[in-house]
């Protein structure tokens, strides 16, 4: 018995040593098969399934490459990447918003040479120039990452309600606030507007066009932090005012379901909502009519798409819109074989069939950054029929909006990386949460945000 126990112990102790040798053997073979992780912010299972199909197709053609798809929530992406960087376990490539990508670039963890090489290979003139500009480094002609698809955001609103009330569309500060107040009827479980108040990225997405329309920005042309300005304070106060007409409690984009249920007059959202509005089966997941039959607006409203208007531009001192270009990027790698394989995969993702398959995951939400794809009849004939529903003009308008996105991180044509870092660290959303949910005084909250921003700029 003793003998058996001792033999067992020895085997147990030797196992980790054997593991080390096994790893060593694998590393030695790195020039052969190559494997890397692909982190994507497309966390929904159906989207992951589509990306997996693209990966499977690619790896069938390139049997030496293995790609592991990993879904990362957009709000966790920056933190996860930074901890992976510290641990030396960065994935081969990622898909995330351009601001996030620029923040990674500022941290010097991106392979900008590889990204630039792919863009030049495809041809810079093939892209919509505005989308490339968002990812350009301070050196003209080099890029942090590659624009892949994008969406624009604005206020979606009930045109039938507005018409009946004789209100103007929510395109200016005054008209939006007036309508939010008018439609706010909490006793009837109906709310005026949805703007983000949770400490998440969505809040900044809603706030940015409001600040920009008031000529408030984070930095001036010389890269000096000018967050604590009267214009910014006005915008913050206005936003907090709007948030009073939100559904109760801290809110994020998920509350868009209330609109589909007929309980909201207006909501900030991206063009991703287009299929939910138009298609009953897509919207079904958002509805609760089966469970709560007596709740107001509980069934799918087939007229909702007709009765919904879109106001992408907000105006106060100047007009301003908002959108996000989603980028593909490559992290710096010790093993050049990983970079080479990731480069090959990205090139594959830009080929016509793969690209269109990817974009058709969310027609309206995922719009191309290559001119040739935007006008491609295959792209315009999406399986869900969204293009037919909205018409080619509306879609062209959306893509045009994508080409003229403005952000806090480009001032007067100059790239300011710190603004992207501020965005990645969600300082503005945290400030909004403190003001709208914890009742913190605007001045105090702005001072707090300013000091957090200074920690980044002084670093």
């Amino acid at each position, binding site marked *: 018995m*003793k003998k058996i126990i001792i033999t067992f112990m020895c085997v147990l102790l030797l196992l980790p040593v054997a593991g080390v040798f096994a790893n060593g053997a694998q590393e030695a073979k790195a020039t052969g098969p190559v494997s890397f992780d692909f982190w994507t912010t497309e966390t929904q299972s159906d989207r992951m399934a589509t990306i997996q199909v693209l990966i499977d197709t690619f790896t069938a053609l390139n049997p030496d490459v293995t790609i592991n798809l990993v879904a990362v929530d957009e709000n966790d992406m920056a933190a996860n990447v930074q901890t992976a960087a510290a641990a030396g376990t960065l994935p081969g490539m990622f898909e995330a918003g351009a601001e996030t990508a620029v923040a990674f670039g500022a941290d010097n963890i991106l392979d900008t040479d590889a990204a630039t090489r792919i863009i030049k290979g495809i041809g810079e003139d093939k892209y919509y120039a505005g989308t490339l500009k968002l990812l350009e480094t301070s050196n003209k002609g080099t890029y942090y990452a590659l624009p892949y698809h994008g969406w624009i955001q604005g206020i979606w609103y009930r045109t039938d309600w507005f018409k009946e009330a004789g209100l103007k569309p929510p395109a200016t500060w005054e008209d939006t606030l007036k309508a939010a107040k008018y439609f706010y009827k909490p006793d009837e479980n109906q709310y005026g507007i949805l703007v983000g108040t949770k400490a998440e990225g969505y809040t900044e997405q809603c706030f940015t066009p409001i600040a920009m329309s008031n000529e408030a920005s984070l930095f001036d042309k010389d890269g000096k932090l000018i967050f604590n300005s009267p214009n910014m304070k006005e915008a913050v106060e206005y936003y907090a005012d709007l948030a009073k007409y939100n559904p109760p409690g801290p809110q994020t984009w998920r509350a868009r379901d209330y609109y589909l249920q007929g309980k909201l007059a207006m909501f900030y959202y991206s063009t991703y909502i287009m299929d939910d509005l138009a298609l009953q089966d897509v919207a079904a997941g958002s509805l609760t009519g089966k469970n709560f039959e007596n709740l107001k607006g509980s069934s799918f409203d087939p007229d909702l798409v007709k009765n919904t208007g879109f106001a992408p531009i907000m105006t106060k001192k100047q007009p301003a819109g908002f959108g996000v270009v989603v980028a593909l990027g490559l992290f710096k790698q010790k093993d050049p074989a990983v970079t080479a394989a990731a480069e090959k995969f990205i090139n594959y993702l830009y080929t016509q069939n793969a690209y269109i398959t990817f974009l058709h995951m969310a027609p309206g939400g995922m719009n191309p950054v290559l001119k040739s794809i935007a006008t491609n009849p295959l792209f315009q004939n999406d399986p869900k029929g969204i293009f037919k529903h909205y018409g080619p003009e509306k879609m062209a308008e959306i893509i045009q909006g994508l080409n003229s996105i403005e952000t806090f991180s480009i001032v007067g044509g100059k790239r300011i990386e710190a603004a992207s870092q501020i965005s990645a660290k969600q300082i503005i959303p945290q400030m909004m949460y403190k003001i709208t949910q914890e009742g913190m005084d605007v001045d105090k909250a702005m001072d707090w945000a300013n000091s957090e921003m200074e920690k980044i700029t002084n670093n």
Partner: protein
Amino acid sequence: METAKRLYPATLDRKAREEIFGWVLILPALVIILSLILYPIFYNIYLSFFNVNLDGVNTYIGLDNYKGVVFDSFFWNSVVTTFLYVVFTTIGTTFMGLIVALAMNKTFPLRWLVRSLILLPYVAPVISVVFAWQFIFDPVNGIFMDITFNKLHLFANRFNLIGSPKAAVWVAILFSIWKNFPFSYLMILSRLQAIDKNLFEAAEIDGAGTWQKFKAITFPELYFVMGAIVLLRIIWNFNKFEEVFLLTKNVKVLSVYTYFKAFTGTMELGQGAAIAVIQFSLLISFILIYVKKVLKW
């Protein structure tokens, strides 16, 4: 004996050989504890004295991280929240576990079924019950508001119980009690079943009532098992992260606060490490006092 001779030098006596064998048995566990528990603890203590940069270059800053933490009012808010959370959840789970165990110790039809059903909250995956709770308390579509506001008119307006920074801690406490009381119940019930029935019969002959029997027999018999349950619950809930974080990000108990400090916003890993060290010291001191005074070890 043949085996022993081959493995140990003949000069070792029986006692020494037993000792060596003892170490061999302990070794795997020791290696795991050293590498997975002690190393991270010591590395964390080390980091707490540094300004930690993600590019791997750390600068020694002495006690600055600790000063930063101690002079931060958000930290003290989080200490108070943790205190509230631990005290109420521990009292709640133990008390609820006791009551339910006493009830389940009586015989009634279908007792076996009820006993198993009670365990459901404890065995259900946290994430699924968290979603259920969020849906129940949704201010616009949730059943809670539908009943209390729409049907019973108990409140003047709809509100977001889980989202509200003030109310959320109480929801988190209620959730923890509901989710974890079955553990206390299970422990107490098994002890209850082991109490000698003769004691109760003797007490009855002496004319003791229900309360007297509980005070003189049941409670003293349960004292140590309850003491252990309370200790475990305090340790678990003092470090509790996932239940609180998934349910509502508004309740910044120490572990959640440390996460936000270290991994979000401006990512102050050094200060995060300092908070973890403070949290660890608080817990260890408490355990030492508790074990000596309450468990009388």
